[in-house]
């Protein structure tokens, strides 16, 4: 900083003090909450070292297993290799639910959620049939890609997201007639399914690798402002609840379409594991909130702020939602049609938890909810 800047800063701060001294309402905004002796660095270190990085490493391992099973299936498609692939697929997809809430930093920069498990976004209406929304699979693009052999899975577009990741893999390996389809244009199909599995592995490898350097940024920023680690974590709680209310449960059930069910747009449709995935999602969310039952967590932070009763409400509501989701049998797609009451029950409780996590917790922790793009112009 040169002398001139210093001079100007000094002058400015002088003026600012002068300004404060002659005006009661100086315009300084609400102060962030004082956390007392709560150690946010310890909390973030706990999250990084004991929860987030191990979860990504487990994901990496599961994707290694999945990639092997996919390759075995692609090289010799049969019911036996398909069964093995389905087991590996289910394990990996369930593990994915445990990392989804950490979609910031390296995962955000890699667009991990878009390329691995595209939900269609929170701003796409389910009201029209035939459109690619929710957890759809773009079988047209997939088949075109296979036919032409020319595709770029790094392309950033909705059709690209819908042609790769877990949904595409399940279509290629588990959907009706998946094995038979390998008898036509075999080489291209084998290559495509291997590419899709390889890209999943590549992306998670990159995220694990990037956490190596991002860890210091993560634990070194204890603020709660926009874009801070704590801010991002609290935003993700709210975002994941919006996902449950929308693409995971509410929208395929018809909450946006006057009760018209879009069961094929539900998560894990071909694998028939949508309810398990939703349960894994809410359990992982609770785990993230409580820091695996540790005081070095957002839950512990709330308690240190004197918000014990809010924390109890959140914990109780997590359990209610988990129980309601637990009651929904798989395949979820079928339950949307036959178990309407159970879905409705779960939906109501999801909304209550959403309010707590999107309104009350952010307000208590001084975090702004900013994941929505509501910029009008």
């Amino acid at each position, binding site marked *: *900083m*040169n002398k*001139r*800047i210093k001079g*100007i*800063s000094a002058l*400015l*701060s002088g*003026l*600012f003090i*002068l*300004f404060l*001294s*002659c*005006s009661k309402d100086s*315009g*300084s*905004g*609400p102060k*962030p909450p004082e956390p007392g002796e709560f150690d946010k660095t310890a909390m973030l270190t706990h999250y990084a070292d004991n929860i987030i990085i191990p979860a990504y490493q487990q994901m990496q391992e599961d994707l290694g297993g999945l990639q092997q099973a996919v390759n075995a299936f692609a090289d010799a498609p049969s019911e036996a290799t398909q069964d093995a692939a389905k087991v590996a697929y289910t394990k990996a997809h369930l593990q994915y639910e445990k990392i989804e809430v950490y*979609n*910031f*930093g*390296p*995962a*955000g*920069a890699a*667009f*991990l*959620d*878009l390329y691995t498990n595209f939900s269609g*976004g929170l*701003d796409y*209406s389910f009201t029209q049939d035939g459109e690619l929304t929710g957890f759809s699979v773009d079988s047209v693009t997939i088949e075109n890609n296979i036919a032409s052999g020319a595709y770029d899975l*790094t*392309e*950033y*577009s*909705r059709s*690209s997201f819908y042609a790769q990741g877990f949904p595409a893999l399940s279509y290629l390996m588990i959907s009706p007639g998946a094995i038979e389809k390998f008898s036509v244009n075999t080489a291209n199909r084998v290559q495509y399914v291997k590419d899709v599995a390889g890209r999943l592995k590549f992306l998670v490898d990159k995220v694990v690798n*990037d956490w190596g*350097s*991002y860890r210091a*940024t993560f634990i070194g920023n204890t*603020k*709660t*402002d*926009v*874009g801070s680690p704590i*801010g*991002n974590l609290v*935003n993700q709680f709210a975002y994941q609840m919006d996902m449950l209310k929308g693409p995971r449960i509410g929208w395929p059930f018809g909450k946006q379409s006057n009760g018209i069910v879009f069961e094929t747009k539900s998560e894990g449709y071909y694998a028939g594991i949508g309810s398990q995935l939703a349960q894994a999602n809410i359990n992982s969310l609770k785990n993230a909130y409580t820091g695996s039952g540790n005081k070095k967590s957002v839950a512990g932070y709330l308690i240190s702020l004197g918000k014990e009763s809010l924390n109890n409400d959140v914990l109780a509501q997590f359990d209610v939602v988990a129980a309601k989701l637990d009651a929904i049998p798989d395949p979820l797609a079928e339950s949307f049609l036959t178990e309407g009451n159970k879905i409705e029950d779960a939906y109501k409780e999801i909304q209550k938890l959403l309010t707590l996590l999107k309104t009350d917790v952010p307000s208590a922790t*001084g975090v*702004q909810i*900013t*994941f929505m*793009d509501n*910029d009008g*112009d």
Partner: protein
Amino acid sequence: MKLTFKGTFLFVALFSLISCDKDDDGPNIPQYTIPDSYSFDNVNFEDATARVKMLDNINKYLSTAQANMDKVTLDQTKLDNMWVNSGNAFDTAWLNTTGVSLAEITADAATFKGYIDALAALSAQDLTPAADGTAGYIARNAGKILVSGEGLEYVQAVQKGTMGAALFKEGIALLDEVLASDNNTVVPGEGTEMAHNFDLAYGYFSIPTNYDTTTEFATNNRSKLLFWGNYIRERGGYINAADVIWKAFRTGRAAIEAKDMSTVNSQVGIIKEYWEKVAAAAAWAYVTIPQSQSGNLSSQLHALSEGFGFISALKYRPSTSPLTASQYNQLIEILGPGTNFYDLLSDPSFTQLNAAKAILNTAYGQLQEN
């Protein structure tokens, strides 16, 4: 609330950064009141309003290329005509016959017209997904954004950029002229030269004469609060820009009528300071917001493009600006012409964007709540 001169004096003391220690023995000026609205004799800022509306029309037309997922080819000739106001390019006869144009007041006009032309050319191409190095579209909300190979959303570069290079630049220039203008000869319908310059600056700021700073007013008058008139609330809330600027414009104009030059001087200073600070506060917000929109590339690029525009506006800052030339150069190095937005976003720690925030904070102090 009507204020007497004594009240005005107190008000100035309270709201001006430099006048708390002012002695109570002012010059011999008759008492005057500060009205609640911008209502004075001989107010006319039609030329400014016309140019604001022209930018609004251009902006709305450009936005049609992004409103949905269809290819919408923009008419280059129509845009050329809108820019210089020829060939009845606007929908209203008033704008077509007003005799003024946006081009004539825009600094670095070739740059900003260049963004318009680039968008028109991109809109004429078949829709291609955007990527690092490839201009194209990215879905955003119910429509899409069209971005350059570096990720710049042209609509925002035009809109926020011209807010700076035309409306802000011109407003500051007029305010600078106010103090040297004649304040004796009244031109019927526009007042003195000083009053007219001040009124035109008010026009470029784009708030109605019956403005008030409540949320209710903003909600009910969305179509009248264009550009800066909208942004004082949208991004200027923390710095209290709406209250401060609205009072300063009314006070300054009343002081011109009363020939109270020291108050005119102080109010011009306040308006210049806070107008610039709104641009800085918006820039700060838009290098911050993308850091919390991980995985949502279109929203991130949209926000960065707004930030790009507001940072470019700082080029036209007043000579009294707290932002030094070297700080400004660092800012445009981070988010300026030639910046690759994808590179900014591929860093999980957003080091460059945080550096921009720090520069803005060093120059302007705290700009947003958090």
